[in-house]
């Protein structure tokens, strides 16, 4: 009965059937890093119903223009894109003032990371590939960045990651924690990528950014729309645990 669930928050838990399985043989590294026992379901307490999103978002600043935030005075090379969308909770309500963190490869498919890569693609001194911003009162975030390039990886012969942007959100509750990847609708490499394909068929399309002509800025950048739905429930300030 629905009434049994009121206050238990079961309807805002992380919905495992929307997410990839932990064990996914086509992505080899999952094999030793996936639990084999069942999770233990707990009655949600304040430890689960709260989360770091509000407090952490309050101490982080915006840094949403990845085309200039390397601070060199120069501009990053590549196709400029605006990426925007809404962050929603499990009931479809906007999550305002929440931090969205992103990282990505440059236009050539190279990360500014100390880890070595055998991929001989150039670094761009004017591109870090890291940014963060907050959603506004309607749950809307927006970045200006460079369309990332695809890059090879070692999972299987001739393996390539389709172009993607990594996103990290904390959201309203502990179980809202989401790290995902934004892909570009229409990319023919998606069906070949075990990481993209690890998500259930019914939910893969939720990782696609779509071209939106209303977001494009004339003579400046193409526009892409990407909405994000989190587990958990946004609580407006002043709502008490016993309301």
């Amino acid at each position, binding site marked *: 009965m629905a009434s049994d669930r009121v206050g238990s928050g079961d309807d805002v838990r992380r919905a495992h059937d929307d997410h990839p399985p932990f064990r996914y043989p086509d992505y080899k590294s999952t094999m030793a890093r996936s639990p084999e026992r069942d999770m233990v379901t707990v009655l949600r307490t304040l430890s689960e119903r*709260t989360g770091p999103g509000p407090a952490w978002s309050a101490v982080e600043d915006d840094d949403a223009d990845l085309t200039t935030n390397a601070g060199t005075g120069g501009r990053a090379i590549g196709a400029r894109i605006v990426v925007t969308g809404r962050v929603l909770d499990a009931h479809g309500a906007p999550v305002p003032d929440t931090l969205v963190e992103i990282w990505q490869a440059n236009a050539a498919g190279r990360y500014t990371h100390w880890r070595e890569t055998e991929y001989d693609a150039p670094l761009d001194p004017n591109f870090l590939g890291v940014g963060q911003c907050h959603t506004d009162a309607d749950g809307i975030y927006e970045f200006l960045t460079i369309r990332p390039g695809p890059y090879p990886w070692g999972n299987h012969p001739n393996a390539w990651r389709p172009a993607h942007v990594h996103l990290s959100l904390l959201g309203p509750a502990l179980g809202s924690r989401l790290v995902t990847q934004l892909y570009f609708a229409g990319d023919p490499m998606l069906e070949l990528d075990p990481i993209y394909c690890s998500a259930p068929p019914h939910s893969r399309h939720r990782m696609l950014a779509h071209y939106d002509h209303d977001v494009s800025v004339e003579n400046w950048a193409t526009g892409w729309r990407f909405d994000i739905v989190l587990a958990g429930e946004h609580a407006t300030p002043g709502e008490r645990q016993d309301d």
Partner: protein
Amino acid sequence: MGRPRRTRQTPSQTVGPFFGMALGREGDEVLVDDDTPGERIRLEGRLLDGNGDPVEDGLVELWQADASGRYRHPLDDWDPPPSTGDARGFTGFGRCPTAFETGAWAFDTIRPGAVADPAGGMQAPHLNLVVQARGMLDALFTRVYLDDEPANEADRVLQSVPAERRATLVATRQDGDDPPTFVLDLHLQGPDETVFLDV
């Protein structure tokens, strides 16, 4: 009618090997400063895979109540300040990428206070961890209890875990350290697999 039917959630994807660019900022594993009330503790361990090998590219995040058992969250009667700039204070949140050679992670924090149990009474003091890594397609959630807390014996969540797996949730206090150090290894798989919670 009750609440609207839930909206389908955006699927999780792995943090991959390069998350440190954005989520690996040095200092985020220290939750306290000189003004933070409460007993200082250090919580540390390793993140290990099913072969017992260190996970060299994992991310452990910590979420905990303050010394009086309060979370910095609107549901615990706390409103985010307009802007705190560099004056972070205690947020209750920390982040630590695992060390490349050893899979080790550590937090400098305070002993959390007890938080109410909606089923009645108080829960034993505990810290909440979120674990991610390259090779993990979704985040895992667990709790850490401290082995010197008598309230563990009556904690509903801890006691609901099968006795033979309970130790995977309890960090062990080391002798002689000041501030006290509590140690707990996290096992993603295998005979000592950590108990993960559906939150």
